[in-house]
């Protein structure tokens, strides 16, 4: 199979999933947020044409859909890398040195928080509290939390994950609620 054909398959599959999503929420009140969440889960972000179709499906003007999408921090209007590294900046993590950990990971990946690596493999984010305060400071890679980190250890954890990705075993991609079973 050529790369182009494979790309076409991905698009067709995404289109099918998107149509299922729209169908699932048909006629349901308050469906705008779950539609946006579902669409982002399928496409990885919310491209303009998807926004237009989501607004239409929810029966709302595009301006409102865009207003909602920009209100919540979960939504992304730009392409997002395959794997997400989230540095937790909850209170417990902040007082335990989260800033230094973020800086070290930024230096290691060569990007700032909020950016993707140029190969679109890793996105780095700073988030407020992932609920593992007892293990502060915490970094989440996709849906897996890593706790009790120091700047050195955090970079080690990221490097270890990168090695897994390079070996073709990166686990499930950027988490929108998906989680590896035991």
């Amino acid at each position: 199979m050529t790369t182009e054909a494979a790309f076409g398959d991905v698009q067709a599959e995404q289109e099918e999933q998107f149509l299922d999503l729209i169908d699932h929420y048909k006629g349901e009140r308050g469906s705008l947020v779950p539609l946006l969440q579902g669409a982002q889960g399928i496409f990885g972000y919310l491209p303009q044409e998807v926004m237009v179709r989501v607004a239409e499906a929810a029966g709302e003007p595009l301006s409102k859909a865009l207003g909602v999408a920009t209100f919540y921090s979960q939504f992304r209007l730009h392409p997002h890398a395959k794997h997400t590294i989230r540095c937790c900046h909850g209170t417990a993590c902040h007082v335990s040195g989260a800033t230094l950990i973020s800086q070290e990971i930024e230096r290691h990946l060569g990007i700032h928080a909020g950016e993707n690596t140029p190969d679109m493999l890793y996105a780095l984010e700073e988030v407020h509290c992932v609920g593992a305060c007892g293990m502060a400071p915490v970094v989440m890679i996709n849906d897996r939390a890593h706790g009790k980190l120091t700047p050195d250890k955090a970079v080690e954890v990221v490097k270890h994950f990168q090695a897994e990705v390079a070996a073709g075993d990166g686990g499930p991609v950027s988490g929108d609620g998906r989680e590896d079973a035991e």
Partner: protein
Amino acid sequence: MMAAERVLVKPAPQNPRLTVPEVDVRICLGTGGVAAGSREVLKAFKEGLARTNVLAVIRPREDDCAGRCASVTGTGCQGLCAMDPLVEIHLRRNGSSQKVTYGQVTPAMADEIIAQHIIGGEPISKWLVLTDEGPTEFDSFYASQEKLTLRHVGIIDPEDIDDYLEADGYQALYKVLSQMTPEQVIDEIQASGLRGRGGAGFPTGQKWRFAAGYSSPDGVKYFICNGDEGDPGAFMDCSALEGDPHAVFEGMAIGAYAIGATTGYMYVRAEYPLALRRIKIAMKAAEERGLIGDNIMGSDFSFHIKLKEGAGAFVCGEETAMMQSIEGNRGMPRLRPPFPAESGLWHRPTNINNVETLAVVPWIILNGAEAFAARGYEKSRGTKVFALAGKVNRTGLAEVPMGRTLREVIFGIGGGVKHGKAFKAVQMGGPSGGCLPESLLDLPVDYETINQTGAIVGSGGMIVIDQDNCIVDTARYFLSFTQQESCGKCPPCRIGTKRMLGVLDKICEGKGTLEDIAFLEEMAQQVRVGSLCGLGTTAPNPVLTALKYFRDEFEEHVLEKKCRAGACAALTTYAIDPATCTGCRACARVCPVQAITGERKEIHVIDQALCIKCGACFEKCRFDAVRRS
């Protein structure tokens, strides 16, 4: 009531245990446990036990076992996160029963525990954190706790509804539907003195009474569970949802029956993927068993629950904002009245309670309002879950009766400050609360007392900060949080928090003046009185309490350009003391910007022009040769 005329089906496990295994291993698979590597430990136990060839590894509800057998179960948070992964081992052999818990277990340790303890019969005492026989150094963590809300968390398998049913699950709902009128339920909850655990502390029974008193033309009423635990540093709702989701459903159903609601929404943060996954599993099981849905247990009462994933907005924890969000709008609060009890979600009467509040409701129904009210202090009855984190030795979740002193919780249960450092403050109530100094540690933790200090009990997060944390930086941290999370509706909140943050940045950079401190106080008043919702009205609290109790630190930053904690980079310099330096190169290796030079066994020097003040060398040096000033 109609309910009395029908014969209801009493809930019971569908697949009772076929075997009580000789070896029962329970491993914490909460978010904290998983972060510490508990999945790998669980796998090591399963594989290691199977390798012994002495014990068959079974699932007690599915497999019958003729010979000797063991089961390995994943549970929710077991509480003592500092020692995660926690592994509880319960041995039943030769007519006796022995239960112990190991802490910080690794896969390698699992093999040793299997060989020495499970097979050999000798517990490995150096790794134990809890035993039912002798004392361990962690006894004070467990001793004063009373688990009502978290009664099943860390014990049952949250993904197995039969585990919950076996542990009195859905019996409270059965009792309510078969024996109690809605009024009686409300009376019971009101008599218990239960107050909203999300932060505001409003009496739950009274809230239900308001909601019960309103009706809509089409008869629709809503019951919402607030699981949008946005306070950074609180994780009790996360743990309750991960560890015992059915208890929250049961609490919702009881509340819905009391107020006459037929539709429920469970609003949970998307940042809690594990909680969401377990809720979905539990919801499906509860619906299949007829415990949620139409004609619950064969009664006239029907109640459906829909799961709504939050999309990342702190303000949605505010009830009117949450309803906006469920309706598919930007989550912006609106003016009250009308209160949600009168006109809430889609203009119907609506009641909202927090996860922790709902999780304890079944306990109150089963054990009685008096039993709950017998615990507590003054107007704060019952128990409350506190999340201990930050610079405290034993981080984790602790449930204690209200009214224990801060000192008992932080130094008794929490075991004091990490690495023997000096206690500076405890932050309570997150972005709506404040930092309390050592002089207030003997205050009892109850809603009224803590309110008087300028902080709040809030959702129960307690973050301990020590001598290495800067009070100004901590205040700035919270302002940067509220400034980002302000929905923007009220200009005093939107602009005021931004201006306050700007001033705090300036002080941390060593450019502040005394006028700036006065400006902070003035602006704090403006933001407080000019904002509509709780986010804005409480946003200045972290700054006001910091100024109230730690004004000298602000003045030091401003007048002496000094940060005593060494946390504000612009006010801190690192230098190597030539007399103490051994030339070991440890600091040079750890420096991320190669600012430290010097050959082995020669004195090292930090190039101040290159230094980014990260403090890595300071942490690394074993000879205290790196000096911070």
